[in-house]
């Protein structure tokens, strides 16, 4: 009901807005989480297009010619950075995009991760910085700054929307910490099919284990899965989660093998479609945290 009211008042605000459609900024965001954040702050001043849509995987995305056209027409392009959108440089170049490219994660304290590939340990930057809500605040600042630079006339609106969004994120951050603190420290261990929760784990004190590496590009071998199953049995972990971009059949099979019940879908790399459980950045945490806690409570 509150959401309906909010949508209604937003629609009224849109109607009352003095801006005409012609003055709107054309903004492209690389993936759904970032696209939602930009939309929250830009409001009615911009049309935001997202290249990798809901449930899409930004790691393995392959741009199409229509994406190049979208970029070429844009006034402003936002990417996450930290190696998430390795396809963007080529795309921007081939599209002939000369405008500003804002890296939303700029200023984030990055985490490195050891990615094991064919026995070689490779240290790479973990791109999933948005999974820590304090990093979300940095994203908000960067987005506000970029929007203000592109459209100084509406600076006050961007600042207002940015402050409101930041306040929401801060409240949510405190709430997540409070909820996680109800779980005994020794039980804060989770297994999920895609290792996108490094920042979340570091920020909120949860240990995440994954059957696959950091990237969704490599396929798990029989040896990897056997190691993971042995680990689940050894450590008594019952918190097992399907992630929205990896093959759920693999996790289901591991669950069956170890007698662990699945904890439901977590959203990490992408949002859900509008009618799903996590259509916005904030909803992603509201979906994930209670599920994580319910799973961790069952740990031995």
């Amino acid at each position: 009901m509150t959401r309906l009211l909010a949508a209604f008042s937003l629609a009224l605000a849109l109607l009352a807005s003095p801006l005409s459609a012609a003055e709107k900024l054309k903004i492209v965001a690389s993936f759904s989480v970032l696209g939602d954040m930009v939309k929250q702050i830009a409001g009615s001043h911009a049309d935001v297009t997202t290249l990798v849509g809901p449930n899409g995987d930004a790691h393995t995305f392959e741009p199409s010619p229509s994406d190049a056209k979208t970029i070429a027409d844009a006034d402003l392009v936002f990417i996450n950075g930290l190696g998430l959108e390795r396809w963007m440089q080529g795309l921007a170049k081939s599209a002939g995009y000369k405008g500003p490219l804002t890296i939303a994660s700029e200023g984030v304290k990055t985490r490195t991760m050891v990615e094991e590939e064919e026995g070689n340990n490779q240290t790479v930057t973990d791109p999933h910085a948005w999974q820590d809500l304090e990093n979300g605040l940095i994203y908000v600042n960067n987005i506000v700054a970029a929007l203000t630079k592109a459209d100084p006339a509406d600076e006050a609106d961007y600042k207002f929307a940015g402050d409101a969004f930041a306040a929401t994120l801060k409240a949510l951050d405190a709430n997540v910490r409070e909820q996680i603190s109800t779980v005994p420290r020794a039980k804060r261990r989770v297994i999920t099919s895609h290792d996108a929760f490094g920042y979340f784990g570091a920020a909120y004190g949860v240990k995440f284990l994954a059957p696959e590496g950091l990237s969704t590009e490599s396929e798990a071998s029989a040896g990897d899965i056997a190691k993971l199953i042995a680990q689940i049995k050894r450590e008594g972990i019952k918190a097992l989660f399907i992630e929205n971009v990896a093959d759920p059949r693999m996790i289901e099979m591991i669950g069956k093998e170890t007698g662990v019940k699945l904890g439901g879908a977590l959203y990490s790399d992408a949002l859900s479609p509008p009618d799903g459980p996590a259509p916005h950045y904030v909803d992603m945490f509201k979906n994930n945290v209670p599920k994580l806690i319910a799973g961790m409570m069952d740990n031995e």
Partner: protein
Amino acid sequence: MDVYGLLIEPFLAYSFMRRALVACLALSLGCGPIGIFLVLRRMSLMGDAMSHAILPGAAVGFLVAGFSLWAMGAGGLIAGLAVAVLAGAVSRATTLKEDASLAGFYLISLAIGVLIVSKKGSNVDLLHVLFGTILAVDNASLILVASITSLTLIVLALIYRPLIVECFDPGFLRAAGGGGSAFHIAFLILVVLNLVSGFQALGTLMAVGLMMLPAAAARLWASEVWSLSLVAIAIGFISGIAGLLASYHFNLPSGPAIVLIAGLQYLLSVVLGSRGGLMKQYFPQPHYHT
């Protein structure tokens, strides 16, 4: 590491390894003889074409019903059969040969599939769906694979003689009133069914590997249809067991490991095969008559 730890323990310790093994063995049982008939009918590349024809049907099934075994299997079956039957009909009704009309239809089917997938927009990793992974085979997939294999062996037993006659002399079968095209269509249905079952376990591309490589290798060791089939099944078994063990011990992706071991046996057969292998042809043993 001893022999037990190397060969036996991985299967005893993990049920996913056992399920993968059973899936491989069941697949080999059905795909082996089918591959032999494809080789004998000079339709070796047809398996590959049919796997492309199945792909879009399975993709549509996935987009409609998600990770549903039956939707994806049924979609693949319908698309594969439609292409096979249409190609057969066109080659019988026009001057076009079957391989040409098959190429035409499977390319159309493939393009429609790719169109639907990319129009649908979401980049959900369809590769996972379409390439499958034998390590994630669940009981429902196993039952499907086993049922298709049983059906294949029963139908092959029933139409064994007419099928062989049609392989070598289709004109004779027609002259003897044998209804050649009915057997041909029954055989095509079996091909598509086995590709659908392989796609549940290995992904379409890899299923073709387990169908054609053992059959091609067997051709270099045996000459009767029944012995060819047995050799092909044995090579499929060895590929499944050795491929899974390689995937377990050396951390290799399992599908390619299984198919590469089948490929290795094929290459060995090309060199060593007792029926027309390289060694036999270029270094023939003297014949002793007693």
